[in-house]
């Protein structure tokens, strides 16, 4: 059990899908964050203050990397 033997039959392709799913779930959770929380501490909000866009941008990069490799 300590070596996760019960997952030994999961193929690397299925494992890759798990990681890609993790990135998608992370993106969905980011989208659910209230806008007021995102812009907290900003006096004159501009579009680039929206940290959801930053997070989704970085998630898009890592999603692409794990899709390719």
């Amino acid at each position, binding site marked *: 059990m*300590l*070596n*996760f033997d019960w*997952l*030994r039959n*999961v*193929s*690397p392709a299925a*494992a*890759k899908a*798990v*990681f890609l799913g*993790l*990135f998608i779930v*992370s993106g969905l959770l*980011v989208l659910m*964050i209230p806008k007021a*929380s995102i*812009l*907290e*501490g*900003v006096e004159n909000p501009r579009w680039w*203050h929206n*940290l959801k866009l*930053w*997070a989704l*941008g*970085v*998630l898009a*990069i*890592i999603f692409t*990397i*794990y899709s390719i*490799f």
Partner: protein
Amino acid sequence: MLSGIDYFIVIAYLVGIMVLGLYFARFVRSADDFFLCGRSLPFWAVGMSIVATDISAMDFVGVAGQSYRFGVSVGNFDWLGSMPAMLLAAFIFVPYFWKAGLYTIPEYLGRRYNDGVRAVASMTWIIFFALDLGVLFWATAVMFEPLMGWPPWFSIIATAIVVGLYTFFGGLTAVVMTDVVQMIIMFVGGATVVVVGLYHAGGWDGLTDKIATMGDAYQNHFKLIQPADTQTPYPWTGILFGLTLVMSNAYMIGNQAIVQRCLATKSVWHAKASMLCGAFFKMFIPMLVMFPGLIAVAMYPGMEDGDKAFPTLVKNLLPPGLRGLLFAGFLAGLMSTIDSILNSTATLWTKDVYERFLKKGASSRHYMIVGQLATVVLLIFGVITSPLSKQFPGIYVAIQTFLSFFQGPAFSILLLGMFWPRATQWGGLVGLVGGICTSILLYIFKGHLFTIEEPFLYISWWSFVVGVLLNVAVSFATKPHPNGRLAGLVFGLPKVPQSSCEAPAC
């Protein structure tokens, strides 16, 4: 040996970084300035500083060596080992820490649980950082000796003086601002090796084609996800449970040297943005530290020691001038890690030990001076202990192993502390200490319990699980904290912070 132009670049780098660091001394007047830059830093400086602190010269050599042996799967440590954790830190933990006005992570644990948890967490980090300093100083000497011809003691003292001066006078502001320059130099130096190496290897296509024809041993070299029964240290199960869910979170959320910078930002938005900015730059780190190993596979196959991959590329491919630039990048990696460790350890000592247990209620200037003195003591300790790395070559691995014992349990109490109001002070203490003991036992009996040679990812996961279970069990058996005491410390509760000194449970 380096040539004249290389010497000039390295000396100019050392002098320039010292002058830049000392410039920021004029802004340091109090403990708040020294430890948290008067909470004035912009997100981009902190984001770049996080990356510079995280990456040292040993990553260039070590990760290139691992990618030479095992391929791109070592890149998981910078991609999966940072991204999800940095999102969690940016949107959940760091805003809470920032609004609570914290200086240290153990300070949060002290407020959320009790002073026992704070003391264990703080002393563990202080011991780890102090021992790590000696290793880093020795690594500097090892780099200087063959290239510059300097004896080890001269290299160590020269580095200690340069880093010590600006860290002593400039505090965290000098550390962060020099880190910004050091990250740029690291990126330029690392990218130089990759670009020149790829050119000689026939570009990306030439590289992949060459490795593809090298036989079965290299068939997984371009696969990030390795099977669960792989003999490499990176089975996907370990990457998911040990790295992604535990170690990366423990590092990005619980590491004082990383989080302290976010607490020094000018607003809560800058605190969150700094983590995301750092995550963006971290995406490029594997390309700088991992690709040289792959290039070496194609150009110099059959090396027995993978750690020689990076030095071999530098020696054979880089012309004078570029070697000096890369060496400056190496130095930048080491110095940015050393200065961050110095300042963070001084902060831990001053805020978590000296102010809490030895002298309460002194002036801000008094605590600043204590922090500066702690910096000097640590510097001397690091210099004195640096030759231990020569006498005991395994000391670096031993220190990293010591930290891995702590990370799973530490993250378990941070996680439950933030998300579960029912977690009590005794639950936290038992979870932390019991989890650390579990790690040690698993490590001692690893030969009987695990099928892979270095099961540190699995040890982190299982010690985390035991930490959670013990915390939950003991918390249910002990008296819960009143919600008023937890305000501002637990996700979902009202955000009015309350000092631990006023809390009845303390």
